[in-house]
């Protein structure tokens, strides 16, 4: 038993923080925020590639570093803290992790080295409209290896080169790998609550689609990919939540009202203590998630759900209450609070809202405790 990062992992995390402090300051994030023509920072993407982060968990035979998942979690925590404006989660947590878990050898060999080299951006396309996507509402279809239908919204779909797409074939839901640069793909960039991350509508009209994993297992495969992504995203959420608490604390310690710093008032102290409590509950749950992910433990579905629920709650609370502590300044475009408020929404929605994960968790508990 050991419930913390190891010294090596801490070192990696410190290095990641230093790198991001140097190459992803808030100016970089705002550069993307304020430019409707961009949804990620190309230079940072190159830097992250040079650091080897894209291929952190990709085996060496496919051009990666072959590190463990806890190392990736440490990187994710720092990316979340920096509100990094890059399609890292879509490329690494969804496409790379998805192919490593379920792709054929040929698919791995074709895609993973390009991800590690920073040549390929990935994404996961499941949603087709408002509400939860399910077998009854799935309209995208594959016939004779050609995909047709519309996915909306697809996170990072505006810039991605390849997608994992949930679609039905012969009436059975399956998962497909699609080259988004090929024929039969039209996409349109959409406006997002969080402009530092791209979203798109993708219209497929006879796009070449290659099945990933077993036919008919689409929803199970997507769920398994989401479980893995949920843990990694939870680390991003935790990093963001920690940063919100720090920002709120620093501001409260420097802001005077009624003759003293507002950090001395119990209304503020208790608010910050509440943030701390939620962040620690989240940290403990996401650490457990990291272990389950790294070990591919049977507990992963429960651990991932708990990590996502706790981290979503912590980041939401910290991001909204940080604005409150900052007062009127917190509501301005120029103060950074809203970057985190926006990202907290993006991260809470991107692989399914907390409500969906609560249901998943309770469903698992029902099975586990069926007496």
């Amino acid at each position, binding site marked *: *038993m*050991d*419930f*913390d*990062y*190891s010294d090596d*992992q801490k070192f990696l995390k410190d290095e990641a923080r230093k790198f991001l402090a140097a190459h992803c300051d808030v100016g970089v994030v705002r550069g993307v925020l304020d430019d409707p023509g961009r949804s990620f920072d190309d230079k940072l993407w190159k830097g992250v590639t040079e650091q080897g982060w894209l291929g952190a968990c990709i085996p060496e035979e496919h051009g990666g570093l072959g590190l463990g998942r*806890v190392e990736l*979690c440490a990187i994710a925590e720092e990316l979340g803290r920096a509100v990094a404006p890059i399609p890292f989660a879509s490329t690494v947590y969804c496409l790379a992790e998805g192919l490593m878990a379920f792709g054929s050898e040929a698919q791995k060999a074709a895609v993973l080295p390009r991800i590690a080299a920073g040549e390929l951006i990935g994404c996961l396309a499941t949603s087709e409209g408002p509400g939860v996507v399910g077998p009854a509402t799935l309209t995208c279809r594959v016939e004779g290896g050609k995909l047709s239908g519309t996915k909306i919204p697809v996170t990072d779909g505006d810039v991605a080169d390849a997608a994992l797409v949930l679609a039905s074939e012969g009436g059975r839901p399956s998962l497909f790998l699609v080259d988004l640069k090929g024929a039969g793909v039209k996409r349109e960039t959409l406006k997002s609550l969080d402009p530092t991350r791209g979203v798109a509508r993708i219209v497929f009209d006879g796009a070449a689609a290659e099945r990933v994993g077993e036919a008919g297992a689409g929803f199970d495969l997507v769920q398994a990919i989401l479980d893995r992504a949920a843990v990694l995203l939870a680390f991003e959420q935790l990093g963001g939540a920690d940063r919100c*608490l720090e920002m709120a*604390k620093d501001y*409260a*310690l420097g802001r005077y009202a009624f003759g*003293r*710093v507002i*950090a*001395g008032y*119990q209304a*503020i*102290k*208790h608010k*910050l*203590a*509440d943030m*701390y*409590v939620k962040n*620690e*509950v*989240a*940290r*403990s*749950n996401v*650490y*457990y998630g*990291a*272990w*389950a992910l*790294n*070990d591919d433990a049977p507990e992963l579905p429960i651990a991932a*759900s*708990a990590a996502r*629920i*706790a981290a979503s*709650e912590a980041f939401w609370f910290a991001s909204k209450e940080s604005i409150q502590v900052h007062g009127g300044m917190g509501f301005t475009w120029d103060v950074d609070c809203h970057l985190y408020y926006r990202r907290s929404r993006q991260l809470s929605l991107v692989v399914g809202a907390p*409500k969906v*994960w*609560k*249901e998943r*968790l*309770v469903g698992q*508990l*029902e099975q586990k*405790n069926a*007496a």
Partner: protein
Amino acid sequence: MDFNDSPEEAAYREKARAWLAENAAAHRARFGDLKPNTPEHMVAAKDWQATKAAAGYACITWPAAIGGGGGTPIQSVIFGQEEAKAGLGYGYFTIGLGMCVPTVMAFADSETKQRFVSPAVKGEEIWCQLFSEPAGGSDVAALRTRAVRDGDEWVINGQKVWTTGAHYCDYGILLTRTDPDAPKHKGLTMFWIDMKDPAVECRPIHQMSGGREFNEVYFTDLRVKDSQRLGEVGDGWKVALVTLMNERLAVGGSAGPNYREIMKLARQLSGPTGPALKDQAFREKLADWYVQSEGLKFTRFRTMTALSRGQTPGPESSIGKIISANQLQDLANTAVEMEDQYGILVDPDQAPAEAAFQQSLMWAPGLRIAGGTDEILKNIIAERVLGLPGEVRVDKDVPFKDMPTGR
């Protein structure tokens, strides 16, 4: 980040499990199922503590030379888990071994330590902590119990309150005021006392929950020797902080039903739209409780990891009780409301789960106050963990006797 046992830990767990299988069964065969807070229950508890001590499973992290197990914090966690699984666990020794005896070990002379530590580990003698007073709850340092020096002795008069187990305890550590002319934190001194002294009188408090687990303790001309002093005269607050620091390390499980019990209840009951367990609002609450409980469990493990790496865990473990007490109140009330009209019934023969939810509902308000109120714990987190300024203090440099008291 490894939630599996290492080979050494697995071996320890196996050993502990085997030991528990044999000894817990023997213990049960001897004592059967007893009602808590009865003399028979206490006899059984002392027997179990002695059995554990003889095998090195009591105070696992303390050196073997003083009666402990000479083990690691992780071993202590492992044994605690296995003991809980075996369904055994008596609460009588938690405060004494978790807080009082460590304070004695830190401040008493070697003769006193020799005399008291080992009997406490074996469960032969139980200790209580005498800090809170009617005028000093959250503000413990406002206490008024007076100790006046008389040659080589001290004469103590005053009253403590909310003392857990004072009526069955043998010894206690007592925080007193020795200098009312000094500012309040500076005029305090700590002693250990004999709870069976005729000058000590315990009166049980009738709680809103109906029980009587806590006491008022009165001291009328109690005479103690100066050698019973723990720490220097006037240093009582520093000594008390050591006691309270140890409180954070005493690993406590949560009292009362958790998400599993309410799930069991929900399986059996109907809600407004079908089975109670299928009610969406309930399921979301259930998920939140699970996440909080697991979060707390793993936070405790993180504390233990810090310990085993030689770090000193700080006040961050204060989050535990804020969460568990509030969750208990919410969970109990949700269960009672789930029982609908029937929820008003409190007789264990009638109410589901032997009225555990009704009892917890009435117990939870106390849990949110005992051992630091929600509000004081949030202050501790804000000030000691986050480094925010302390409250504006009007009492800091004023002689204690000149402080306004409201009566």
